[in-house]
């Protein structure tokens, strides 16, 4: 299953600025509380955690629950300290794992 992740990080920022990071990943986020037409419970299939590292240092992490809507969209902020890479990591049920990166230039 190819999950598509969209990440919005400003390409450049001034040192010390607070930047907004928006992330969106395609995922059904099946709650495990719904029934199929035959009355059988559809097993849970959700993303359980999402984290972001800025040059290797974790700046943001979340635990997601079934109450998060399909295609989880998460927005957060960070201080632009230095040029480098932002690494995004999603982990979910059934071995789901996606890693994405975004570059930022800090002046």
């Amino acid at each position, binding site marked *: 299953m190819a999950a598509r992740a969209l990440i919005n990080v400003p390409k450049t920022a001034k040192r010390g600025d607070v930047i907004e990071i928006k992330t969106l990943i395609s995922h059904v986020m099946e709650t495990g509380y719904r029934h199929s037409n035959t009355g059988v419970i559809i097993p849970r299939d959700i993303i359980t955690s999402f984290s972001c590292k800025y040059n290797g240092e974790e*700046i*943001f992490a*979340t*635990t997601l*629950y*079934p109450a998060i809507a399909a295609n989880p969209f998460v927005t957060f*902020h960070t201080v632009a300290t230095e040029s480098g890479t932002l690494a995004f990591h999603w982990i979910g049920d059934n071995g789901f794992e996606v890693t994405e990166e975004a570059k930022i230039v800090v002046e």
Partner: protein
Amino acid sequence: MMLSITRRDALIGGIAVAGVLPGAAAANTPGQMETAIRRVVGEAEIRKGKVTLDLPPLVENGNTVPMTITVNSPMIKTDYVKAIHVFNEKNPQANVISAQFGPRAGKAIVSTRIRLAGTQKLTAIAEMSDGSYWSDTQEVIVTLAACLEDLI
């Protein structure tokens, strides 16, 4: 062999299904929300303020509800928000999201989209670096609930 369903069987089956479904859809209750909150917070006192839980007051579709949590904090090394937790009253599970922050976050704001199974109250709790807890509660009216439409 499965084709020989009599009217009586069908009726009994129907009653059985009707009896089971409300149980299967058993939502959590405000009491369970309190338990879930205490599991995270422990015995600490939760004060009102500092946190703003931003949700639309009237939601047409409970499957995607935009939610923003803002905590009033300078986000410096000595005073920052450690975590934000959101809880609900009526979804099958009381937890909605937990987010961990550090002073590197710059602003203690997190936005996402959530599911709501019916009209209910949501509570956001922020854990500060000094160990104090602050909260905000919002009531949301939902016209089309998430999760449950598949059961009807």
